[in-house]
Structures are given as structure tokens and as C-alpha cells.
């Protein structure tokens, strides 16, 4: 989410609104927004994980603790020191671009902790979504 912050205006100029969905509480979401100085990015929470399941996101202890996650985790912790976990620790994330007619233009399902799409990919897919 911190990596997205410098690109929010570009997304909005394209006509795409970014939303972050987390599994913690609303208070934890507000705290996280403030911690990474990303109040401009709207955050909603889904403690029941219903949207995660409906979007096909994975939830797995094995995938979260898999060795290939370690290097990503260390890299992420250096870039953005992690505080306590707020939300489901075994839930993995992902991304999706949906148009107003409900057309899902792009979808990414994280395969392990630390696996997320590059910002350049998000921006490219956003451009494609509005050009379609």
C-alpha cells in the first residue's frame, strides 16, 4: 500500500479509484493509513473474509510460511518495518480491476506472502481497463 501512495493521483487522473481491502478492524485500518501516511487511499475492512473468498484469494498457513516468502518478507520489512499483524495472518491478498458494468478487466491472486503485482503492472492494467 505504501508503494501505491505516489501513484494515487495518476490512477485517479485515469479515472480509476484505488481501494484497499484488509481483514483487520476499522480502527486498525485507520491506524495503518496514518502509519504509512496514506490517508488519501480509501480503505475498507472485511473481517469475515467474504470478499477474499469471493475474489478467489488464497488462505494458507503453508503458503504464508513457505521459504520463498522469507526473502520477500525480509525485503518488505527493510522497506517498511512491520508492526504487529492486524488481521488474519494466514490470509493472502491480490488485486482486481472492475469496471462499472461489473466487467473484471484484470485479476491477480497472490501465491505466497509478499507476492504482489508490481506498481507498473497495476498502472498498465488500469490504463488498459479505461481504454477498453
Amino acid at each position, binding site marked *: 500500500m505504501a508503494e501505491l501512495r505516489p501513484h494515487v493521483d495518476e490512477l485517479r487522473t485515469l479515472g*480509476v479509484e484505488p481501494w484497499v481491502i484488509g481483514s483487520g478492524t476499522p480502527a486498525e485500518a485507520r491506524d495503518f493509513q496514518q502509519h504509512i501516511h496514506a490517508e488519501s487511499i480509501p480503505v475498507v475492512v472485511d473481517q469475515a473474509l467474504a470478499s*477474499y473468498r469471493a475474489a478467489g484469494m488464497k488462505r494458507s498457513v503453508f503458503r504464508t510460511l513457505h521459504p520463498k516468502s522469507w526473502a520477500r518478507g525480509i525485503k518488505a520489512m527493510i522497506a517498511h518495518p512491520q508492526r504487529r499483524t*492486524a488481521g488474519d495472518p494466514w490470509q493472502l491478498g491480490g488485486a482486481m480491476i472492475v469496471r462499472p458494468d461489473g*466487467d473484471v478487466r484484470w485479476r491477480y491472486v*497472490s501465491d505466497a506472502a509478499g507476492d504482489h503485482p508490481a506498481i507498473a503492472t497495476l498502472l498498465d492494467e488500469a490504463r488498459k481497463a479505461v481504454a477498453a
Partner: protein
Amino acid sequence: MRASEELAGATVVDTDGTERALGDLWRERPALLLWVRHFG
């Protein structure tokens, strides 16, 4: 691929505690949805 009714109808909560359907997020304009592992 279209967003399923299950996805559009999933309940999410704003940081101010207001409940809304996930589908509301893309009703007016395209939405980039990012599901994060956790807040931390």
C-alpha cells in the same frame, strides 16, 4: 469475466464503521481493488 453476485454483495466496512457492499466501490467508476494480507 464478470464480478459475481457474491463478490459484489460482500459486505465491507469503511474506516468510520459504515457498512457497504463491495459492488458500491465500482458503481461510479472503474475500481482498482487491492486485498492486503494484513495491516501491519
